[in-house]
C-alpha cells in the first residue's frame, strides 16, 4: 500500500525556490531516511508535508493515502495521521504538557469518530509512554517544553508521537544535538512504533542515528532534488565520503 506519494514537488519560501522537483514514494511499513547537507531543503520538505504557513507549493503534488493533502490545514493532516517531529520544538508557557497532549489526542479521536479518553485512561496511557521515553513525570506537568533541556525536548517529541500513534511520522533532525544515551532512547521510541501499517521519514544530517534505526531506503537531497537513493549502505558511504561525492557521482 502506498502511504505517501510526492511528485515533481516545487516549493518556495519568501519567493526563493527551495524544492525544485522532489519525487518520493513511501509505502506502508517503510522507514525512509532523507539526508543532505545544510540548506538542501530537508526541513522545507518536512514543513511542506505538514502544512506550515509561509511555504508555497508552486508545482507538483503530494498524495497521502490516496488523498491530495496540499490544500489541507495542518490540523486536518494531523487528524489523518501525519505527525511532524520538530527540529526546534516550541515552548508554550501556561499550557501543561499533559493538557496539551490530551487536547491533541482527543482531537484525533474525535476526528476518527472515537470517544474521548477520560482522565484516568489518559493518565494511564501517558505514564506508560513516558516510561518508554524515560521522561520524568515532573516534565509532564510543566508547560509544554518550558525549561526542558535540548535532549528532553527531542524526547518529548517522540513521546508525543508515541501517544498520538501516527500513520506517517516525519522526524525533522530529531537526532541533532543528542548525546548517545538520549539518541538510543529516541531510536527505541521510533522502533517501538514500527508496524506494517505505519511509515516514518527521518530527516537527518548525521548517519549515526541510522545505526539505531535501520532504514529501508536512504535518499540524498541536494539543492532541492533527490539526487541519489539507495539502501542503508548509502548512508555509510556518505559518512565515509561526504556529500560532495554524491554531486560528482551523479544519480547513478
Amino acid at each position: 500500500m502506498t502511504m505517501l506519494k510526492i511528485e515533481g514537488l516545487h516549493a518556495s519560501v519568501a519567493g526563493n525556490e527551495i524544492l525544485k522537483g522532489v519525487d518520493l514514494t513511501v509505502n506502508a511499513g517503510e522507514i525512509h531516511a532523507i539526508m543532505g547537507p545544510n540548506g538542501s531543503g530537508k526541513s522545507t520538505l518536512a514543513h511542506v508535508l505538514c502544512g506550515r504557513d509561509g511555504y508555497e507549493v508552486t508545482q507538483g503534488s503530494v498524495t497521502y493515502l490516496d488523498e491530495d493533502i496540499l490544500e489541507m490545514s495542518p490540523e486536518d493532516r494531523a487528524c489523518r495521521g501525519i505527525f511532524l517531529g520538530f527540529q526546534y520544538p516550541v515552548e508554550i508557557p501556561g499550557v501543561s504538557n499533559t493538557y496539551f497532549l490530551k487536547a491533541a489526542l482527543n482531537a484525533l479521536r474525535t476526528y476518527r469518530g472515537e470517544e474521548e479518553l477520560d482522565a484516568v485512561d489518559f493518565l494511564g496511557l501517558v505514564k506508560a509512554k513516558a516510561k518508554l521515553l524515560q521522561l520524568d513525570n515532573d516534565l509532564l506537568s510543566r508547560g509544554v517544553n518550558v525549561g526542558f533541556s535540548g535532549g528532553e525536548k527531542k524526547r518529548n517529541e517522540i513521546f508525543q508521537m508515541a501517544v498520538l500513534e501516527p500513520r506517517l511520522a516525519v522526524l525533522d533532525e530529531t537526532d541533532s544535538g543528542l548525546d548517545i544515551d538520549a539518541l538510543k532512547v529516541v531510536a527505541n521510541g521510533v522502533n517501538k512504533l514500527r508496524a506494517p501499517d505505519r511509515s516514518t521519514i527521518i530527516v537527518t544530517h548525521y548517519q549515526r542515528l541510522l545505526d539505531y534505526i535501520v532504514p529501508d531506503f536512504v535518499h540524498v537531497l541536494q539543492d532541492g532534488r533527490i539526487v541519489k537513493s539507495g539502501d542503508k549502505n548509502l548512508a555509510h558511504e556518505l559518512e565515509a565520503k561526504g556529500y560532495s561525492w554524491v554531486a560528482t557521482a551523479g544519480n547513478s
Partner: protein
Amino acid sequence: MNRSATNGSAVAALDRFADVVNSLGEARWTLPAREAARDHVMNKGLPTPRDEAWRFANIRSLDPNAFTTPTAVQLDRGRVDELAPRELHAHQLVFVDGRFQPELSASAAVLAPAIVGSLRQAWQDHRELVEPYFDRILNYHDNAYAALNTSLVEDGLFVYVPRGVVLDRPLHAMFIGGASGETMSLPRILVVMEESSQATLLEDYVGWGEHRYFTNAVTEVQLRANANLRHVRWSHESEGAFHLGSLACRQDRDSHYAAHSFAVRGGLTRNDAVAELAGTGAECQLSGLVVAGENQLVDNHTEIRHLVSHTNSQQHYRYILDGRARGVFAGMVHVAPDAQKIDAQQNNENLLLSDGATMNTIPQLEIYADDVKCSHGATLGQLDSAQLFYMRSRGIDEKTARNLLTYAFASEIMEAVPVLAARAAIASMVFDQLPLDALETDLVREGVGHA
C-alpha cells in the same frame, strides 16, 4: 455639549459636604482631613485629559456630576451570596454602594484580637488606631478623585491585625456597586498590619444591576516590620460602569506585600497603585491582568518608591485587548538617593487580538543611586505563529489553539493568586470575557496549566 467638571466649583458632589460633616458625630476629628481634601478638589479641579497622568484615560466620558448619591437599599441575601465566589471559605464582608452591611457580613468577633469591620465604626471606637494612618498614606496630589473620596467618605472597611497575629482565613470584602441607580460610591479601605502579622485580603468589586454607576475607591495599607499582606483585587463591574481605584501601601522593614489586580469588566477602569518601601528588607510584588474588549478602557498606573537600601520590587502586568479596547500601563520605579542594593523588575506584556485594539505602555525609571539592579520591559504582539503551528500540527484546530494560547497568557498571572477558590472565580470571569467558546469547560476547573 456637556459641561465637564474642570474646576472644583463645578463638582456637584461637594454640595453634600456640609451634610456629610453634620452626620460625623464622634468621627468629627476627621474634619481637617476632609476640608483639606475638599479644598484640593476645589482648587485643582478633577483630572482632565490635559493632565499628564490622565492623558490616555478617556476621562472625558466620565462626568462626575452625572451621578447621584447612593440611597440605602435592602439587598436580597441569596442574590448577594450568589455574587461571591464558590467555596471561598473566607470571612465575608459586604458593602453596598460603599456602606458596610453587618446583616450580610460574618461576625467579626471570631477574628479578635484583630479588628475587622466598618470604617465608620472605627472612626468612633478606635480613633487611636485609625488617626495615624487615615489619609496619611495616600498622596492625592495628582489624583483629585482620591481627594474627593477623602472629603466625602462616609464608611468603608477597617482592618487592624495586632502584632504577631496571623489571620488564617482570607478576608473577602465585597463592594457591590450600582445598587441604587446611577450613583457615585466612595469605598474606602484602611488596613493596618502590626509587626509580624499576616493576612490575606480579597477586594472584590461587583456590579448589582446594569446601571452606569461610578465606583471611586481608595485603599490605604500600612505594613509594620515583618508584616505580610497578600492582597487580591478584582473588578467585575457592570458594563459601562466607571471604576477608579487608588491604592497606596507603606512598608516598614522586612515587610512583604503581594498585590494581584484583575480588571475584567466595566466601561472605564483606572487603577493607581503606589508602594513605598520605607524599611530595609521590604519587598513588594505587584501583578495585574487586564482583559478588555469592545470599547472598554483600562488604565493601570503604578509607582514603586524605593526609599532605602536592600528593598526589592517586582511588577508583572499583562493585557489582553480585543475589539476596540484600549489599555494603558504606566509604571514608575523610583530609587531614592543612596538607596543601594535595590532589585526592581518591571514587565508589561500585551496581547492584541484585534486590529482596533490600542495599547499605550509607559515604563519609567528614576534612579538616584548607583548600586542597583533595575530592569523594565514591554512587549506588544499577536499570538505566536510558531506556537500556533506547533499545536495545529498535533491536531488541535486553529480556533482552539488560539483560545488555549490566549488563556495560557492570562493564566500565568492568575497562578500567583494565593487562594485557590479566588483563583478559580477569577479564572471563570476571565474565561467569560475571552472569546473562548470552542474550549472545553473543564479548562477552568482544571486550569490549562494543571491538567
